[in-house]
């Protein structure tokens, strides 16, 4: 067995262990206040699917924890891909406005009373692709600031998206406005079993494809000419990876709204720990990102005295300072 394979297995093993621990915690705690003790009771009452604990843990918390894990994985993987392809440590779907664009599409879908799937999802995907195209269009070609142009154009497109979202919200006056507001803050509370299933069907193949391309990402990081000479079809791989990541991000936006900064924090953290080999980083991001969002969602569910808060609030509270730290350091 080559050393890379060994490393992949070791890192994945550690991250999976971490993810499983966090998921068990996520199953144990919740707003109805049942702790570890009652989880033991649930294991006892496995045979009795009518019991209350069974319902709460397996029908309410379990799909939610699963969705959080998949969304976290998709978002941090999206961040990793964007950072590799654009060779910019601050690139991330949320900061570059891909999430915002998807949100515009999704809000229009909600206001048109379309169903979550496929109506709203397709519009969200179109919105995400539109902003990706816009960002790339603005940042390529002759611009004044070569290196920062991508980030700047992303920030501008994102600001524009926020403005459009605000505009759409100010047009809405009925009860839907509350739903949209909570959803925009990144909300995992409404997912059930069927949502978890759809997310799995959409996201898991994307994870596999990105892992498949992970060595190409390594080569791309060495520069376009280098990658070309190593037999990498730069154009096709860049475009398809960007498309797949945007597709994943818009799928998560459609179900959970804007969960920010996951794609920034996790890849950087993991790169610090495990080095910059994407063959290792891709699985690490999948499991680590999942664990991070499960943890954030757990905090969102248990921190408030009454009720719960959107998970996106927690990820942004953690993520924004990290972003500033990275920005300072990269100077």
């Amino acid at each position, binding site marked *: 067995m080559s050393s890379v394979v060994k490393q992949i297995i070791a890192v994945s093993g550690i991250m999976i262990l971490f993810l499983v621990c966090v998921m068990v915690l996520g199953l144990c705690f919740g707003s109805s206040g049942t702790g570890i003790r009652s989880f033991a009771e649930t294991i006892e009452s496995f045979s009795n699917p009518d019991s209350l604990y069974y319902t709460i843990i397996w029908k309410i918390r379990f799909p939610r924890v699963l969705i959080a894990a998949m969304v976290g994985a998709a978002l941090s993987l999206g961040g990793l891909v964007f950072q590799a392809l654009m060779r910019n440590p601050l690139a991330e779907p949320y900061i570059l406005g891909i999430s915002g664009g998807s949100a515009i599409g999704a809000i229009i879908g909600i206001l048109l009373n379309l169903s979550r799937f496929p109506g709203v999802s397709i519009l969200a995907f179109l919105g995400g692709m539109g902003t990706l195209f816009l960002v790339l269009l603005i940042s390529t070609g002759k611009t004044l600031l070569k290196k920062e142009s991508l980030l700047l154009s992303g920030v501008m497109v994102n600001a524009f998206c926020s403005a459009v979202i605000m505009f759409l919200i100010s047009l809405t006056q009925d009860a839907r406005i*509350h739903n949209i507001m909570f959803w925009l803050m990144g909300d995992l*509370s409404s997912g059930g079993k069927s949502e978890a299933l759809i997310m799995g069907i959409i996201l898991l193949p994307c994870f596999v494809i990105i892992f498949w391309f992970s060595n190409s990402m390594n080569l791309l990081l060495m520069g376009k000419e280098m990658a070309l000479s190593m037999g990498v079809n730069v154009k096709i791989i860049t475009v398809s990876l960007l498309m797949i990541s945007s597709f994943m991000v818009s799928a998560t936006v459609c179900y959970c709204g804007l969960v920010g900064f996951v794609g920034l924090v996790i890849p950087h953290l993991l790169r610090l720990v495990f080095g910059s080999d994407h063959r290792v980083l891709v699985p690490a991001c999948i499991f680590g990102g999942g664990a991070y969002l499960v943890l954030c969602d757990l905090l969102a569910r248990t921190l408030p005295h009454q009720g719960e808060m959107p998970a996106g609030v927690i990820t942004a509270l953690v993520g924004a300072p990290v972003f500033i730290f990275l920005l300072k350091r990269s100077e």
Partner: protein
Amino acid sequence: MFKKIRAISIIGMSLVIFSAGIVCAETRPMKDQAGRIVDVPVSPNRVVSLAPSITEIIYDLKCEDRLKGATTYSDFPKAAQKLPKVGSYVYLDLEKIVSLKPDLCIGIKDGNPKAIVMRLESLGIPVYAVNPRSIDSIQSTVLEIGELLQASEKARHMVGEMESRIDYIRQLTATAKNQPRVFFQIGISPIVSAGSDTFIHELIEMAGGINLAQSYISYPRFSIEEVVVAAPDIMIITSMAREKVFDQIMAKWKQWPNIPAVKNDRIFLVDSNLFDRPTPRLIEGLEVLLQIIHPELNFKPVNF
């Protein structure tokens, strides 16, 4: 031999428990105000209210012993604050609701998130939706909740009382000579009024006034300029924050003495709780409005 007896007795006991379970879970279909057929328990004993107005109506019907949970802002009557909280009505806490083991949830069609309602139902908890949009539909809401909770008698009595208080006010306003132009201000900043599809509009009309925001729907925003041009005879301000804020708003409007309401000193503060919840308390709000809009009619509160 003993084994056999034990087996038979276990089977017998489980049959008894099973059939008892069926008796407890006896349901009947009822059509709710969202037009859905809901299988509700004949005698619901663990009800969770998904909106403050519903909590209030359940207390009015004296059925609070059946109520096991309510939303965060269910603060009337005072006793309702002690109920376990299941999140606010626009952001329900699914897990908390389920942990209260309700046999019936009563929610509102506009406001409660659909996704949560659908998940409650997929977990076997019936959700009966009400949709009070007018005084009439508040009365039918009271009657329906009364029927759900086996308190039809009390509900009919409440509706009768509402009816006679409204009749009295109709008689009074029929004798009024003028229809003052009323500007009803809900928000302080921005200035928000109530359009023609709101309870407030209905109450202003019933109290014999003209709602200056009637050409709008839902809750339109106004600029100071528009208010000055509309020239209201009376301005009514609801506020959750009390007196102190009211003084500030008064001082602000005092800068515009060409508004008739300002010139004649007819700016009033009313308790927002009487106007923003679709419950029988709106009739109290109506009586307050009547006394503000037509003080000359000598309204005397009727005691029941």
